[in-house]
């Protein structure tokens, strides 16, 4: 009797060990499925950016409809974190440890991302295209994290270069949000101005909770600036333009990609955004680009919900994961995390609907080995919310 139970225990433990071993095959990958996760605020203060995650979803549905990636379908796990880092971390852990996620895509916001960056890095889980242009992603660079979003620093340089060289502006002021986002813009602007032998005429910080812009605009007007660079949130940018108009101060306004969704900006500003020049990182919604047309037709028209808008944030969700999908395709049938990283590192001037993307073999001392995009181009807002392309893709 006793020997039987010992035998039983042995069989059981062998089974357990065997079960354990098979579970060690690549996490999130089966013969027919690839599990990809993403967080994105669908509620709360940043809900407007939630369309990024929905855009990625439609794109994956399009890929699945075409037969998937090398015979595997993408199973997309998206969850709402309401821009609350505690929830982001909870959701990521739950999906990672419950379902098993192969790789993470995008993810809106610097602070939700920073709550999970260590968790993903320690477990060597690839994370491609965080949807925020933060320097945190590449300081220090991490082997499994591949940012695609161009740096605000580069956008600021491009805008200043255009203002000085093409428009002949010399008195340049900058209004920046007093955080990492704004300061990156400020740094880029300053550095570019120095190369042209110029300086800013005034630099003005704005706090997130500031509401009255009159004193800011007063100072801008007093400085006699003929170009004002707005490195703020959408609502502040609109308020500054509105207050300036009311105070009859009409310089050329320029702003970042965050404010380059023109139909949205025209709607919020009630038409005042007309004439503003912005840097942007994705093709225009109505661009004559074959890829854009295909995505519009086969992803957006086919799979988007009825109230969805084909706007920058929505197709940014496609743009940020294009390199990931391309690398997974190149991996062939033998898809593992190591191979995905290796294939991503081999991307050179990969062109989707965004800037050219290049990564290099991992070097912990070289941020550019992980910063994918450095190109941007400039657009100007027209009366009907359409955009006029001022430049082609600029290499900064």
């Amino acid at each position: 009797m006793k020997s039987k139970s010992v035998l039983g225990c042995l069989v059981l433990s062998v089974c357990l060990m065997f079960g354990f071993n098979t579970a060690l095959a690549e996490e999130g990958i089966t013969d027919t499925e690839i599990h990809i996760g993403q967080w994105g605020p669908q509620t709360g203060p940043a809900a407007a950016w939630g369309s990024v995650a929905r855009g990625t979803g439609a794109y994956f549905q399009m890929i699945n409809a075409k037969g998937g990636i090398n015979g595997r379908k993408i199973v997309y796990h998206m969850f709402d974190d309401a821009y609350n880092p505690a929830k982001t971390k909870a959701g990521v852990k739950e999906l990672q440890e419950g379902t098993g996620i192969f790789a993470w895509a995008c993810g809106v916001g610097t602070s939700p991302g920073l709550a999970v960056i260590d968790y993903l890095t320690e477990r060597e889980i690839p994370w491609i295209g965080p949807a925020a242009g933060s320097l945190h992603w590449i300081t220090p660079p991490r082997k499994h994290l591949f940012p695609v979003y161009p740096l605000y620093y580069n956008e600021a340089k491009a805008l200043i270069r255009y203002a000085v060289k093409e428009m002949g502006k010399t008195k340049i002021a900058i209004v920046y949000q007093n955080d990492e986002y704004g300061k990156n813009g400020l740094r880029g602007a300053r550095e570019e101005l120095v190369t042209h032998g110029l300086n800013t005429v005034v630099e003005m910080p704005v706090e997130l909770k500031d509401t009255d812009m009159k004193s800011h605009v007063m100072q801008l007007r007093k400085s006699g600036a003929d170009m004002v660079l707005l490195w703020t949130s959408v609502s502040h940018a609109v308020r500054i333009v509105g207050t300036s108009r009311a105070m009859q101060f009409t310089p050329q306004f320029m702003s970042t990609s965050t404010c380059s969704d023109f139909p949205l900006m025209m709607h919020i500003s009630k038409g005042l955004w007309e004439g503003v020049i912005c840097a942007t990182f994705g093709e225009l919604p109505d661009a004559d680009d074959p890829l854009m047309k295909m995505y519009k037709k086969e992803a957006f028209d086919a799979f988007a919900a009825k109230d969805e808008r084909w706007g920058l944030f929505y197709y940014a969700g496609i743009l940020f994961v294009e390199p990931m999908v391309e690398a997974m395709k190149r991996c062939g049938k033998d898809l593992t995390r190591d191979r995905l990283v290796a294939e991503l590192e081999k991307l050179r001037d990969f062109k989707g609907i965004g800037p050219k993307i290049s990564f290099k073999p991992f070097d912990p001392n070289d941020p550019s080995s992980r910063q994918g995009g450095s190109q941007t181009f400039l657009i100007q807002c027209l009366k009907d919310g359409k955009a006029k392309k001022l430049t082609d893709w600029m290499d900064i």
Partner: protein
Amino acid sequence: MKMKRNYYEDVQMFTSGVVLFWFLTLLTGLFLLPLVVKNYYVYVANYMAINVIVVLGLNLLVGYTGQISLGHAGFFAIGAYGTLMLMVKLHLPFIVALPLAALITAGFGFLLGLPALRLEGPYLAIATLGFGLTITQVIGRLEIFGGREGLHAPDLTIGSWRLDTDIEFYYLLMVITISLALAARNIVKTRVGRAFIAIRDADIAAQTIGVNVVLYKTLAFAVSAFYAGIAGGLYAFVLRFIEPEIFTLMMSIMFLAMCVVGGVGSMMGAITGACLLSWMDLQLRNILNLPYIGAWLESISKTYFSITGVSNIQFIVFGLIMILIMTLEPLGLFGLWIRVKKYWKTWPF
């Protein structure tokens, strides 16, 4: 019927062997929990434990002293920032930095207690609300606190023990949470707690019989802030990253909601309320995976709501549950428990 015969019977920690037995069972259960559940649930348990600590403190203030605070996210933030700053800038070890930061928080609690001496009800709510909002603004504007870029938590070590995993952190948290829960119970059962309750029930009467209202009201704020400070310091290590925008007004409101849903003026209410609401906060989005109900909710959301409807549904359900609990039992979860207990004791009558 069993009668209490002396003072010590009234203040003793465990009123009967049954209570002690269940307490020990609970302790064993908590000890074994990480060994049987998935790591993710350990994280959830950690999140719950932190909320339990805050709500225990808040309950001392709201439930026992009859004051109100809509600014506890502010104390929470001071605790979190204080702990990290003491560790990073002054290189203090964690076990020194955490209580020290909590003491600093208690100092702020004392300061906020001063206006509370002259303010009541809605006026006090607004004063504390202002405090909560101001703190994050101040922290956000000071470069030394990392500004809006926030702070990263250093590695967590106690002596030579390095706490890397959620499970290790869980055990640390449980020790702290249980000690603080026992401490809170002790406060309530003794002189200080009786003074709190006297102030809550009638502060003029309390003063007449010799309770120092100035001392005990400010003390209630300080103790409550101390709890929030400890919880904040621990929260910084749950997230491993903090920035001012995390400590929102919504957070203060959630703390208060946990306190009220659980049942004001009861230890068990504070604990169950905090556990239930943090659980719902993290888990309610899975409501769509439930059989039948999930599909039904999704179809409602698709027909009547905008594109983000599915995720808004969870907040509607959240609100509904809170309304239901409060309507059915104004004393919250604790009230429900009392009813069940009464029913059980008097059965079959």
